[in-house]
């Protein structure tokens, strides 16, 4: 089963909230100092699902990322985990693309790669938390899509996809080629392997420009963006915490009960 996994490089979401900074004027998040960006954890889980499918059915995994030359690290990370190949899509004209521009760029690259059965990406990116690029790519390529995939089985040119729902799950059958977005709940992604690290470090990752993939200039960049940020602000901490003072944890528990009674919560 030949697969393409779309991954995004994002600021490390594990940075503690106290270190989170915003530039309100440019409406951008200031990357935390000294902490390198990482692969979007949701995309990493999509890659994990793809690796399981490769283990089960064979085939090739190609990783795509849109960004700058520095985005190469997420492609290398993917290769160290077991992906076969990867490409960075980078061009000055791609800057400030919105989700539709990004989806257009990825779709063009996917068409250039050509041979694929399944495209996978994370359910959303941990920076802007939209979760729309995958579905838009599917529309662009006119291929079926199932979101929040938990597990996939392959059988006669069709896929059986288990999808997470709020109250349980569903099982879909879908023809290939197809797209899935992947649920967080596929489980912890595997560690890179030693041989994977060696291979990834040695590999030269190609960079494709707008011309290489035949991107339509009218569909990318700031000019094509359908929306823009009117504001970005830190979440307000509206509450002021009263710490219950006590000599021992037992006493604290007792006092907490009384406090809850006082405020009418119990």
């Amino acid at each position, binding site marked *: 089963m030949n697969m393409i996994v779309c991954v995004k490089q994002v600021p490390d979401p594990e940075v503690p909230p106290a270190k989170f900074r915003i530039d309100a004027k440019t409406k951008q998040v200031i990357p935390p100092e000294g902490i390198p960006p990482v692969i979007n954890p949701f995309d990493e889980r999509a890659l994990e699902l793809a690796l399981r499918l490769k283990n089960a059915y064979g085939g090739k995994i190609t990783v795509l990322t849109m960004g700058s030359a520095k985005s190469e690290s997420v492609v290398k990370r993917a290769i*160290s985990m077991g992906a076969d190949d990867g490409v960075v899509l980078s061009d000055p004209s791609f800057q400030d693309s919105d989700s539709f521009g990004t989806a257009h760029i990825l779709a063009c690259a996917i068409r250039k790669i050509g041979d694929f059965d399944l495209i996978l990406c994370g359910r959303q990116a941990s920076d802007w938390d939209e979760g729309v690029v995958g579905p838009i790519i599917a529309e662009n390529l006119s291929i079926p899509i199932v979101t929040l995939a938990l597990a996939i089985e392959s059988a006669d040119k069709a896929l059986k996809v288990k999808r997470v729902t709020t109250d349980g799950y569903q099982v879909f059958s879908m023809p290939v080629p197809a797209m899935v977005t992947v649920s967080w709940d596929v489980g912890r992604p595997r*560690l890179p392997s*030693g*041989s994977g*690290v*060696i291979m990834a470090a040695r590999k030269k990752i190609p960079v494709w420009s707008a011309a290489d993939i035949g991107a339509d200039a009218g569909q990318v960049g700031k000019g094509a963006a359908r929306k823009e940020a009117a504001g970005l602000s830190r979440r307000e901490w509206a509450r002021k915490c009263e710490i219950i003072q006590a000599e021992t944890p037992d006493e604290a528990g007792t006092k907490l009960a009384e406090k809850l009674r006082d405020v009418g919560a119990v």
Partner: protein
Amino acid sequence: MDFALTEEQTMFRDMAHKFAEQEILPYIKDYEREEKFLRSVVDKARDVGLVAPFIPEEYGGLGISKTTLAVILEELCWGSYSIAHNFLGGPVQPGSIVLKAGNEEQRKRWLPPMCRGEIFLAGAAVEPRAGSDASNIETTAVKNGNKWVLNGTKLFITCGGIADVAMVLAQTDKSKGPRGLTIFAVERGTPGFTSRDLEGKLGFRASNLADLRFSDCEVPDENRVGEIGRGLRNMFYGIDLARLFCVMGSVGMSRSCMESVIAYTKERVQFGKPVASFQLVQGTIAEMAAAIDGVRMQGYRLAWLMDNDAPHTLESSYAKYQAMKLVNFVTQQSIHLFGAYGIIDEYPVQHHYRDALLVSLMGGTPEMHALMIGRQLTEIDALSR
């Protein structure tokens, strides 16, 4: 002089650190309490290629450089020295012996299954009356036709109780003293070879330490590893790399302790202030940090010399000597700064403290290294043989 880590080393470092977080840290407490050898971690290590990665690719390893290995060792031992030892430290000595001193058939026979985590190898030199004084070996190997008959006891052999093959240093010619020693590979199941796990250990509890006993144990000559009489030199191949493990492992353990101390002292409040705000405490932390930084650099330099096939006897002793001082100082001070919490196994410092007790003895005691350095520099042998 380029001190920067390569891209490959950075990726290995991150991977080894994650491995330590996921596959080592959660198990420390239980395996310490039960004093059980953590077998499952070997399988997990094998899955990502961390069992003996220093072995060349053709024999099943990854063929990574010693400098890359140094980076990996620090992260794994940041998790736990004794647990990392189960899959990486254990193979270091016997693996290197087979690689450097063994013949091709022996390499092909033992190294690939070792790298696959299928068999364990152990290096067996130490005896009741031969620790630092390796030439005082009393285990004998007597030729009988095409076989050798071994008799003797080995003590405190790491992975000895689970080893499938033990590289045993035996005396083949008493008259030649240190040049009359030879190494024999003794396979588990050979009649006359028994082992007994050491229990009630104060440290290294998640790892295996055992006595090995040879009683008229017959091994074929094919199992002789290296030339007759070259046993001591061949044993040293293993000890050499084991010292790197010791140095970088000490750095990792110490760093873990220091990080725990910093986090704890920032949290713990006494006299209305965090303990980390007291000058004496900051002084200790600074000492730890500076020492860790120093030994790390010594370890990297030692690895570099090994990679470049340069002589490194002195540098090895310098690094080892400093590493043992480091690990004793840091683990002891860490327990101390944690106050009573230091002795509770909910906190990681206790585990490192216990392991440090053995780490400062393996691969040559500090005293031995001091004398080796002294002998090199003064050209006077104070080792008094």
